[in-house]
Structure formats: structure tokens, C-alpha cells
């Protein structure tokens, strides 16, 4: 396995720390919606930033830290399952769309948010053996269009500023 560059390690760790902080702050302000599981998903910005500024491998580690430590700090075993399945699907989508010229970080983030929700709903349907729970995907996915756009837009802004900093040589 190729070694991580010092830059990837440092920036990846910073982004992972940011992810936990954002998750924590977000958990203090749940969305005032009658949709359990619905959230802004702002911590996804950090994974997206890792994809945009670093590489897929580092981004995956940011996601892993976010999911595992996030569950340990603010979650339950069930929420870990949701985050792991949702996170993996979301990551797969965002990584597949990474660095495509026709797709901006906003599209990437929308795809990631929509697949994260798909993972959540699939887990809920499987855990309760109730396929009709998939109906719940409709409002979640529509909301994901908004929250995904928001976090994609923010990630784009951050990426633009961070690329101007001197430590960003790549």
C-alpha cells in the first residue's frame, strides 16, 4: 500500500476533527421537521473537501473516523449502522463523481446526500422487515436536494479558499 503523504495525514486528520465538531454542533440543533433521520448533513462537507483537495483514500479515512468516532461520542449501535451504510453509499457516489468535468461539488454533494438517505431507509426497512418504510424515502430525498445543495455549495467555497493557502501544493 502506498504511503500517505504527510500533507494528506495532517489535512485528513484536521478534516476528520472538523467532521466530529460539525456533527456535534449539528446534533445540538435538530431540524424542526417531523422527519426522523432528517438532518442538514453539514459534516459531509469535510468528506467532500477531502475528495476535492486530497484523494479518495484519505477521504475514506475521514469518513471512517467521522462514522466510528461519531457513533462512539454521540451515537448508539443502531445509529452506527445507519451512519455506516449511509456513509458508504454516499461516499461511493461522491468518489465516483469526483473530478468529473461535467459535475460540480454541488452535484456531487446532492448525489451523496440522496444515497446517504437511501442507505438509512434501507437499513430501517431491513431492521423492521417493513418494505413499505421505503415510502419514507420520498420526503427524505426531496429534502436531500436542498441540504445536499447547501453543503455542496459550502464545500465549493471552502475548497476555493483553501486552494489559495500556501500549504496547498497539490
Amino acid at each position, binding site marked *: 500500500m502506498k504511503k500517505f503523504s504527510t500533507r494528506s495525514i495532517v489535512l485528513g486528520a484536521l478534516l476528520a476533527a472538523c467532521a466530529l465538531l460539525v456533527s456535534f454542533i449539528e446534533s445540538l440543533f435538530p431540524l424542526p421537521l417531523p422527519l426522523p433521520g432528517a438532518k442538514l448533513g453539514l459534516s459531509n462537507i469535510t468528506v467532500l473537501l477531502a475528495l476535492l483537495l486530497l484523494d479518495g483514500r484519505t477521504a475514506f479515512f475521514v469518513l471512517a473516523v467521522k462514522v466510528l468516532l461519531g457513533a462512539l461520542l454521540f451515537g448508539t449501535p443502531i445509529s452506527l449502522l445507519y451512519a455506516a451504510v449511509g456513509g458508504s453509499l454516499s461516499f461511493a457516489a461522491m468518489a465516483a463523481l469526483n473530478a468529473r468535468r461535467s459535475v460540480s461539488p454541488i*452535484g456531487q454533494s446532492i448525489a451523496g446526500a440522496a444515497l446517504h438517505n437511501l442507505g438509512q431507509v434501507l437499513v430501517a426497512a431491513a431492521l423492521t422487515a417493513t418494505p413499505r418504510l421505503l*415510502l*419514507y*424515502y420520498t420526503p427524505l430525498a426531496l429534502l436531500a*436536494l436542498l441540504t445536499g445543495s447547501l453543503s455542496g455549495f459550502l464545500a465549493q467555497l471552502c475548497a476555493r479558499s483553501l486552494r489559495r493557502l500556501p500549504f496547498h501544493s497539490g
Partner: protein
Amino acid sequence: MKKGDFVILALVLALAVLPLLLLLPEESAPAQALVRQNGRLLRALPLDTDCTMAFTLEDGINVVEISDGTVRIIQADCPDGTCMRMGPICRTGETLVCLPHRLTVEITGADEAVDAVTR
């Protein structure tokens, strides 16, 4: 926003509507609330008679209340209490879920959960 973003947007919209198309057309039985645990039907409660019923499961207790044709979980000892905040529900396909207890309450045979149809 770039061209591919709109393709993604369209795909997500299509994916969002898919469950509605696949799962909404269902049999028209009398309106009732199906209480299931782990997918196993515990009880079917008719929506037209008000009642309050406690379900004691191995993981804990959920109290389901039917009043004025709507269903809610009014009491539960699960750690998150999400199920109590989901209701009340009254239309076909709407579901209350208590994940810690693996309990679902689903409505069948009532009005469709569609606000409008466009052609």
C-alpha cells in the same frame, strides 16, 4: 452548477418518486392500523373505534392510541422516544416506527397518502 449536476438532480427526483409508484397501489381493505414487531403482525386495530392499547414487548413497552381516525404512540420507554414524535398519522402507507423495540404501526385501507397527481 454544471450540466452533470442537473442530470444528478433528475436522477435523484426519479429515485425519490420510485417508492411511491412501487408501494402505494395497495389493496383496499377497511382502514386499520397494523401493529407489527419484527415484521410479525401483532394486532390490527380498526381506525374507526377509539382505543388505547399497550404492547409489552421483550425490549419494552409501547402504548398505541387511536382517536378520531388517527394513530399515535403516546407512551414508550425506548431511549430516543422518536416514535412518539412521529404521529399522529391517518393515511394509507404512513408508518410509525420504534426502532429500539422494532415495532411499526402502519395504516392500510385509509385515504391515499398523496396530496396531488399531475399527468
